[in-house]
């Protein structure tokens, strides 16, 4: 073992961290997300003294499956784009007669395929392994899926815009962005179990209405139609904002000549 060589390699990693603040952010980001999510889950469990609480545990599985729908939709867009960056194919696409709307639409379709595969696999495993039948959500599954998918697409477009602007330095955002939202969209616990200050924030995002709706359907078989309306309305807003951001960043990268860096990265 040569200490000089080890120190040189350590130096190389420190240089890498210093040149990529995103890597430093990650060091704090994931532990904070874990802490907040499990802290709120703990509060949720502590607050529930209901004798039927055992059945509530199934909420976690339902929340996890629906969360994954949103996550896969976001990944369908962001990872499809990254695939073109990783394989240095992006310039071939951008100098072909491909409109940005056509490119994004293709990534949406990939997102749907990813969702279908994920949903089928998770549904089988949760049924056979944990006696959790996702189809107890009945026809509500369809609007739940659709709304989560739409929000996933919005997040995917935002991730793609950030990677376009900052290149592969922002690659980790493709994985992290959905988890910015996980603590505040009530995936595993009710909004009323969240800290008071975070509740108004929770209601700003469509998934909150869907996860609250899921628990309502699982508990009482009823769904608050207003929730679906709010979720759909907010999704239209977020999709429009994300689409605008993507086009704006694409035009900015063309103006600044940043697109060509993807040929050499």
């Amino acid at each position, binding site marked *: 073992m040569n200490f000089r060589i080890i120190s040189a390699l350590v130096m190389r990693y420190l240089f890498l961290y210093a040149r990529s603040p995103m890597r430093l952010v990650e060091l704090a980001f994931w532990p904070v997300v874990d802490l907040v999510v499990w802290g709120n889950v703990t509060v949720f469990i502590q607050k529930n003294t209901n004798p039927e609480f055992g059945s509530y545990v199934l909420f976690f599985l339902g929340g996890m499956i629906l969360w994954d729908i949103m996550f896969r939709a976001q990944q369908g867009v962001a990872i499809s784009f990254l695939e073109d960056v990783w394989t*240095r*194919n992006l*310039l071939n696409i*951008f100098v072909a*007669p491909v409109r940005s709307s056509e490119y994004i639409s293709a990534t949406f379709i990939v997102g749907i395929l990813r969702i279908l595969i994920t949903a089928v696999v998770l549904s089988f495993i949760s049924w056979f392994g944990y006696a959790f039948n996702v189809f107890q959500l009945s026809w509500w599954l369809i609007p739940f899926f659709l709304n989560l998918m739409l929000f996933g697409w919005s997040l995917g477009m935002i991730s793609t815009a950030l990677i376009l602007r900052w290149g592969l330095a922002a690659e980790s955002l493709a994985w992290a962005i959905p988890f910015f939202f996980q603590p505040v969209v009530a995936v595993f616990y009710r909004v009323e179990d969240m800290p008071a200050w975070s509740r108004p924030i929770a209601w700003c995002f469509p998934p909150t209405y869907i996860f609250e709706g899921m628990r309502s359907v699982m508990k009482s078989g009823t769904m608050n139609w207003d929730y679906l309306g709010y979720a759909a309305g907010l999704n239209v807003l977020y999709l429009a904002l994300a689409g605008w951001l993507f086009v704006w960043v694409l035009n900015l990268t*063309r*103006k600044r*000549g940043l*697109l060509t860096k993807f*040929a050499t990265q």
Partner: protein
Amino acid sequence: MSDATDTREVILEAIDLTREFDGVKALDRFSFKLHRGEVLGLLGANGAGKTTAMNCLLGLTLPTSGELNAFGMPLQANRIKILQRANFSSAYTALPGNLLVWQNLLVFAHIYGVPNPKKKIAELMELLEISHLNKSVTGQLSAGESTRVNLVKAFLNDPELLMLDEPTASLDPDIADKVRKVVRKVQRERNVAILYTSHNMRDIEEVCDRVIFLHKGKIVCEGTPSDIVAQSSSDNLEDVFIKIARDGELLDEPKKASAV
């Protein structure tokens, strides 16, 4: 032939194209015309402005000022229409390495709306002598094979305008020679207008009808390769290249070495 008497169809035209990066002019009032069936070489040392010019022409970078027209249409407003009739190949881009060659080519054939794509791909692969690579993994190809697969992609839509960015970079002389011959053959048979960049002066002499030398974003010399050599005190185009790269000029004043 002066511009006034030149009746050939202009395929690509840049007028006073300027591109600044943080106040530095990578292209400075760059103007040229590329005619149907002509091969125009864009030459210059690293940092001369070739890549910036190519990126502007491909719509990847917007010029700070100036005009760019292709097929008589402003490029920015008609990008999709123009790209449908054009194509591009570069030594610095790649087709996805995790797909088979035929899969990559089929994707681009669909993007360009090529009729009977499988037949077209087979014909082009035969032309470039790479039919045997059809089922190979793209990422496992040698540099020469990869370049020829990229050229198949570039020829897929029978482009009227072809932009080739250092197509023979990192190729051995045998493969480079084959690539040059194929480019010339396709260009003659289909009357394609080609914009060609290369650091290989043999490429330029063999392939290009006319060349433009850039230095610090400006045109310093323009003409046929033989006329430029004849007008300079150099023995060959490579010496001309070195002189321009070092001195920034070939002649007393930038002017056309020969009317084309």
